[in-house]
């Protein structure tokens, strides 16, 4: 099994496309972190600044046609800012950990790149005709498919780790290494404002994101196996991802949508307490995604095992 995974990884890392994606990931991470620094304001007088923010958030909350997620996010920020002033809790100094939370949206890029690679691991072998020589070895098709899953998932985790490390290093160069005991105000599951360790939040954000990323690995490989076409697999997976983002607001209106992967694949909704529905928790989302991962894996397994290889 280890040999099979080594083979699949060799095939992933020996392609130019992979290195272009990794390079892009590094460049965009550095770029986003630097942009964050340029846009950040100086926090010498946190009181004056927070007062200013409260005004800004109040202005924004008067605009009625903002999407639900943005509205709630604004509300949360307003509440935290007010709480900060009332309880005299200063904003934490600029530090790499808080910056990593701000740039957590880049995880979406990891998902896109993962889709590009995962969509090719099965379909690519059909297109190139290499599937025949791969399957006439003393290994069951189950094992071969599974090794492809593992290699694609490992690649996704490598990209996520690269994003984290690269983001941290860039921000550390900008703000210093940062205190690992640093705390900030967050809303907990019940919507109460509490002080929490920022590093723990970063670990939660990036760590839990592995599950949505793996669900896209499963979707991309399933489509790739069934259709044997990488381009279609990339296209459909991306479409699901893009539609998924716009489905978060719809989920607040239709309860059954919460059982689809869409509104469950963004962990930041839970870090910043903007769940699509009040009853949805991070545990619920992870469970839903795990069910989808199993379902998609099952589909690709059945198809891959049964199919006649005639191209």
């Amino acid at each position, binding site marked *: 099994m280890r040999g*099979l995974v080594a083979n699949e990884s*060799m*095939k992933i890392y*020996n392609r*130019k496309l992979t290195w272009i994606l990794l390079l892009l990931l590094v460049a965009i991470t550095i770029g986003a972190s630097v942009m964050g620094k340029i846009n950040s304001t100086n926090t010498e007088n946190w009181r004056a600044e927070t007062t200013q923010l409260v005004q800004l958030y109040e202005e924004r909350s008067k605009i009625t046609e903002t999407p639900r997620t943005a509205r709630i996010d604004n509300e949360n920020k307003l509440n935290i800012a007010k709480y900060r002033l009332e309880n005299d809790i200063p904003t934490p100094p600029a530090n790499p950990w808080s910056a990593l939370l701000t740039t957590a949206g880049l995880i979406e890029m990891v998902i896109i790149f993962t889709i590009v690679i995962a969509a090719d691991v099965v379909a690519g072998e059909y297109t190139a005709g290499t599937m025949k020589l791969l399957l006439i070895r003393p290994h069951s098709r189950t094992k071969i498919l599974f090794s492809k899953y593992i290699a694609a998932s490992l690649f996704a985790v490598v990209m996520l780790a690269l994003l984290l490390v690269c983001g941290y290093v860039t921000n550390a160069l900008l703000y210093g290494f940062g205190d690992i005991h640093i705390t900030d105000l967050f809303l907990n599951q019940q919507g109460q404002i509490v002080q929490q360790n920022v590093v723990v939040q970063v670990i939660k954000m990036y760590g839990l994101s592995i599950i949505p990323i793996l669900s896209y690995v499963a979707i991309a490989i399933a489509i790739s196996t069934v259709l044997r076409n990488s381009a279609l697999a990339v296209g459909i997976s991306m479409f699901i991802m893009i539609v998924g983002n716009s489905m978060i607001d719809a989920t607040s209106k239709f309860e059954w949508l919460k059982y689809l992967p869409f509104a469950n694949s963004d962990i930041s909704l839970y870090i910043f307490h903007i769940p699509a529905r009040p009853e949805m928790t991070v545990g619920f989302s992870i469970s839903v995604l795990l069910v989808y991962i199993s379902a998609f894996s099952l589909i690709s397994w059945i198809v891959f095992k049964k199919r*006649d290889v005639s191209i």
Partner: protein
Amino acid sequence: MNQTPVVQLQHATKRIGNRNIVNDLSFDIPAGEVFGFLGPNGAGKTTTIRMMAGLIKISQGDVVINGHSIAKDFNKAIRNVGAIVENPDLYKYLTGYQNLKHYARMVPGVSKTRINEMVEIVGLKEKIHDKVRTYSLGMRQRLGIAQALLHHPLLLILDEPTNGLDPAGIRELRNYLKRLAHEEGVAVFVSSHLLSEMELMCDRVGVLQNGELVSIQSIQDFVHKGGASRIFVTVEPAQMEQAKRLIAAADKTALPTEHPGQLFIQMNKQEIPKVNKLLMNAGIQVYSIQTKEQTLEDKFLEITEEKKCVD
């Protein structure tokens, strides 16, 4: 050496829809034999190979390799098989060596030494660390053979192996395959439409047409048995008409060819002295009598034509 055949096809049938692509195919290949599999395009040669390699399901019957059914005991059966199916489709973005390493990792017990040995045998030492993308078709064919033989298979299946090889390469391959079979006892199954090649390479040939085995016999029998030879008799041009009449009187048909004085007669070789005597006695000057053996190609066309007429 094992007395049971290395591979046994037992009423192997592949049905797609209502059509039998391959119908009730039964034959054995013993160790140490080069078996040629002939047939026009679309006869079902590649489908048969795919069944033998476990790439497609067998609708009816079975293929047994070294005592193990490919359908029921895939891993044990396929361990003894090395193959190129259709084209030598290898990973173009990997080097030749990486390709071999890839396949070596999939079978236990293939050492680095063995890889290097195979590289040496197929004559790719200079280019083995180049990307396969840069290889010519002939080089890919060689690499394909190297990957098929890495694990010392008992059965080697090659689909159109001389494709893309130059004449010197073809001769080299032919000698190598013969040596492999006759000295190392490998059963070699070769499909081809290059009939002249088969004549020089195979011990036995099977002819497939419309998915059915229409003939299976040793190469000597296949070429020589039955069937009249083509005899060319050259006489003094002025006496040609007389010679023609004499031969006609002996119940043979002599046809003039484009060469002056040459007559074409279809008859058994044993009859040559009789005809010669007839002509001599009549005072006809005979300059030469040439026998053209029927080539495999003639024989092949004959068999497949006959079959068509019967159908």
